[in-house]
């Protein structure tokens, strides 16, 4: 029998051999359904990303879902106030695993120019963030770049670890979220 290499297509049998991880990652990274949490002007820029000139559909992410149950990626576009932070956190909690978060724009990343009493200084105070996009607002290319970086991140994931082997404890959230425990 001729040796079979992983991922190589055999013409006669029509069989593909690969790892389960690669298949799951391939499916996940090419169908990232975003939940746009449009809070201010960045939401307008997000519409440009989704529309034909920049066309998020090229990366499989055109299906914007307005129900957190159906979304994989929370795209926080705009200024998060403390009062709205409750909704943001609630929506994040309602999303099914696996889920990712992109903080789009200076406000979502750090509060932006608003160092004032109602504005949260970055959404990472309440939800974990995978990618921060600077800019006020960011160019659509930067949003696409974040999406491509997210695809790279997903392709390094090892989902079978969670399917076949239960981890002892869920990993702690990254960044500043882990801090307020005391």
């Amino acid at each position, binding site marked *: 029998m001729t040796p079979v290499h992983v991922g190589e297509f055999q013409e006669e049998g029509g069989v593909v051999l690969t790892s389960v991880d690669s298949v799951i990652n391939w499916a996940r990274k090419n169908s990232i359904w975003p939940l746009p949490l449009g809070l201010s002007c960045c939401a307008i820029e997000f519409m440009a990303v989704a529309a034909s000139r920049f066309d998020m559909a090229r990366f499989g992410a055109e299906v914007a879902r307005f129900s957190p149950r159906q979304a994989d990626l929370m795209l926080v576009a705009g200024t998060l106030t*403390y*009062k709205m*932070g*409750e*909704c*943001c*956190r*609630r929506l994040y*909690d309602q999303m099914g695993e696996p889920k990712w978060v992109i903080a789009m724009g200076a406000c979502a990343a750090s509060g932006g120019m608003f*160092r*004032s*009493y*109602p504005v*949260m*200084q970055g959404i990472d*105070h*309440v939800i974990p963030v995978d990618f921060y996009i600077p800019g006020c607002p960011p160019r659509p290319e930067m949003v696409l770049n974040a999406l491509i970086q997210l695809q790279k991140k997903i392709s390094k994931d090892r989902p079978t670890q969670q399917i076949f082997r239960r981890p002892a404890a869920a990993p702690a959230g990254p960044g500043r979220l882990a*801090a*307020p425990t005391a």
Partner: protein
Amino acid sequence: MAETQPPTVQKVLAAFPGAGIAAREFRGQWWLEVPRERVLEVLRRLRDDPELAFDFLNDVTCTDHPEEEPRFRAVYILTSLSRKERIRVKTSCPEDDPVVPSATPLWAGANWHEREAYDMFGVRFEGHPDLRRILMPEDFDAFPLRKEFPMEGERSDRDWARWVIDRARRPEGTLP
């Protein structure tokens, strides 16, 4: 300051002799300073007198003058849509008794403007049907547009983060 009073202002002053109403002007725009006991009367007159006919209330808001006594001023901004004229009515209240009359009996639209002014300055509008905070969270304990309030707020981000997450984890039925 040499401008003569417009007919509208003259008419109001003539209608309330001895009420302590002052008429002032800045760059051709006039306003009336009215003691808070008489404000509702004056507003009613401005609305109902057919020669004045100020039928539209643009805004109710406040200003804070910490160095003055009384400290807070409430401003009612009126427009006459039929006569195409504007006027402001101002009244004031001291810090230890921050109460001014509500314009809701005259204009239902004053409701949310007054809630916002209360939310930001802590000035209460007497006669308002539902004087609650409108912009800040209901358990917020300060009045952010008062001059002594620090612009970046008084709570730390960590406190706010805990507050947000606690609220987000409340069961559905317990939401306010």
